Each structure stands twice: as structure tokens, then as C-alpha cells.
């Protein structure tokens, strides 16, 4: 495949190392900890390099790397990271019902100045409430833009499961970020 280890390295650096930002970003969101995130991507990259022969040229290298990251995370780090309680898969709530439940105090409306710092804290806080299965699907779709098929391959799940997890994850995040969403025009209540 490659005539020398140098050639393999060159190919790997061109194909795989370019995705390191994306992998690190996800690793950080999975582990909540810079050191663990560094270890996790380092380990994933070493494995990917060692097994680079198994990557099929022409397919998405980024998806392949994410699969290795996910497996490495499950096998090694998941136990270490405290997971929030599992939510009930079977309760299908609509966005509208979810939002109705949440009391929203108009007086608490946010100041423009603090909106952005508020948001990044709130988003991180909301993310910690998602268990790994939901968070991963959310990142793969809304941050990385993978197709459902690619996400299903990465997560080893049927597409139907991906679809319902994604929908559920977005709802949970939105519920926790409602105040901001309303202020910034991401959600307008229907006036009756």
C-alpha cells in the first residue's frame, strides 16, 4: 500500500490529521476535561495510524476517525465520566408541550451585554444533562454535519434510533436554552 512508513505518515497527515480540531472539540464535550480530551484524541489517532491500512480510500476519513473516537471513549472513558440519568426513550413529547411546561419569567429577560457569556455557560450546562448517546448524535449532526447514514455507521445503531435520539436531544437542549432562544429570535411563541 505504502512503500515506506514515511509515505504512510504523509498520507495519514494529509487525510486524518486535518480533522483533529473536530475530534478534539467532540472529545472535550464528551469528557468535560482538557486532559482527558487530549488523551482521548491522542489514543484515537495512534490507533487510527496503526490501522490506517484498514481505512478504505474514497470513504469519509473523518467518519472513520469519529468511529474510532467513539469506540475508544466507550471502552475506556465512559465509566470515568459521570453520566446523567437516562431519560425515558419512549416518552414522545412535542417541542410545544416541553416549552409549555417551563415557566418563563419575562422579567428575567436578558441584557444584551451578558447574552454571549451567558449562552456559552448555559449551553455547556445543558450539554452536561445529555447522556453520551444523545450528546454524540447531536454533535455529529448539528456540529459536524454528518448524514444520518454516516452517524448510524459511527454509532452502530439503526437510522431510526439516530433519528429519535437526535430529535430528543434537540428538544432537551432547546428546553434548557429557551430563555436565550426567545431573546435571540430562535423561537417565537404563537399568539392566540
Amino acid at each position, binding site marked *: 500500500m505504502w512503500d515506506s512508513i514515511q509515505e504512510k505518515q504523509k498520507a495519514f497527515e494529509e487525510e486524518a490529521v486535518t480533522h483533529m480540531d473536530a475530534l478534539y472539540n467532540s472529545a472535550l464535550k464528551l469528557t468535560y476535561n482538557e486532559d482527558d480530551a487530549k488523551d482521548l484524541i491522542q489514543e484515537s489517532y495512534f490507533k487510527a495510524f496503526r490501522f490506517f491500512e484498514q481505512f478504505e480510500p474514497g470513504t469519509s476519513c473523518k467518519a472513520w476517525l469519529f468511529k474510532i473516537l467513539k469506540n475508544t471513549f466507550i471502552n475506556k472513558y465512559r465509566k470515568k465520566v459521570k453520566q446523567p440519568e437516562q431519560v425515558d426513550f419512549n416518552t414522545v413529547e412535542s*417541542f410545544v408541550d416541553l416549552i409549555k411546561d417551563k415557566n418563563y419569567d419575562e422579567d428575567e429577560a436578558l441584557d444584551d451585554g451578558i447574552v454571549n457569556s451567558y449562552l456559552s455557560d448555559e449551553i455547556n450546562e445543558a450539554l452536561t444533562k445529555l447522556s453520551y448517546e444523545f450528546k454524540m448524535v447531536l454533535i455529529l449532526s448539528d456540529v459536524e454535519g454528518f448524514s444520518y447514514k454516516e452517524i448510524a455507521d459511527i454509532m452502530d445503531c439503526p437510522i431510526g434510533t439516530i433519528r429519535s435520539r437526535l430529535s430528543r436531544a*434537540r428538544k432537551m437542549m432547546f428546553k434548557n436554552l429557551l430563555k436565550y432562544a426567545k431573546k435571540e429570535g430562535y423561537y417565537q411563541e404563537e399568539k392566540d
Partner: protein
Amino acid sequence: MICSTVNELIAPYIDQELSEETLIKMNEHFEKCNSCRTELKAHMGAHRLLAEKLEHTPVNDDVRDKIIAKMREQETASPNWLFKKIHIPLRPVTGFAIAASLIFGILFIGDIVEFTNPDNTIRPIVINSGMSPVMPDGLLATVTGEVVCVGCYIRENYNAEHDCDIKGHIFGFQSSDGNLWSFTHNEQAENLIKIDEVTGKKVKIEGKLYYSAHFINIDHYSIVEN
């Protein structure tokens, strides 16, 4: 289309994962149904908010450089390590010998394993020594046991050179008598291994046992509550 169906399809609608035909049906529904339209708006808002505002933290250059440097140091690692011969000592567990199965198609000669087919096809081959001559193949039976990863098992117990982080686990079955089994690829087995966190789940399997190959053909399974 009824509202509950529409609701389930809102995520793929937004992510452009629906067929043309379904898309048209969805649009027709949104035109006449106020509550689904509201739901769509909220879901779109959530999607947009997350896509725009989920923070992206790049890796810092030091870390990147360190990883690259360490990778360059690994020059000694043979790129073709999968082809080298490894030894898996086989020790009998209970009445039968232990079965070991591996990915990539393997030729077992005694205890020597040679990888011959690195083309990524998952083709577990099971070897077995010291078998009982009395068990017929294709015997219908009900067995209970645990879903295990055969790859992890032989790595942990016999130091087999194997790493599940690359392609995921190679699921198999350890019956309560300690025997290891591979699954024949049928729909039941597919469904079983698709279960989230299937490893370690107690399962009752009805099916055909192929003792000489240590394969199990699942006709029906049920998860046993612990």
C-alpha cells in the same frame, strides 16, 4: 399522514433526509395543520440555535504537534502487522475446548494463526480442539448465557493481538457452561447485537448449535432480566 407520524419525521425533514415522496406529503400536512407547523418552527429554531451556537474549541497547537511527533516516532511499527503470525494458546474450558474467533478471515493451524484476508470483511472462523464427539451439529437447543465480545475475550485471556476500538466489538455468546459461540449472520443475530450496550446482557437463546464450529444459529432470543 397523521400528526404523530409527521412529528417523528420532523428531524429528518429539517436535515433533508427524506425521500421526495415523503417530503411532499409532509408539506401537504404542514399546510393544513397548525400544531405540526408550530412544532416544525420550534424544531427548526432548536436546530439553528445549536448549529450556530454550539461552541467549537480547536485543539491547541502544542497538543497537535506532540501527537504528530509521537506518531512519527512510531517508525518501528510495521504497517503490515496484521499479516504476522501470532500464537493463541488454546486452553480447554469445561468439557469442550474454548473457541476463538477472529475477524478478517483467519486460517488456524494448530495454535498458529495466520491472517490471510485483510480486506475488512468480517468473517469469523472458529477453531476448536478437544471436542466432544457425541454432540451432533445442528442440534436444537435452548441455552442461556451472556453476550460477550470474543475479540476482547481472547485479548484479555490469551493476549491475542486484537483491538476492538477500530471496528467495534465482535459479538459472540458465552453459554453458562463457559463455552464460547459465534453467531451465524441472520436477522435475529443482527437484531441482538444492535441492542445498546449488549455486552454482558443475559440472554436466553433458542436455536441450532453447531458444536464442531461453535456457531449458534439464533431462531429466537430473549433478554433475561437480572
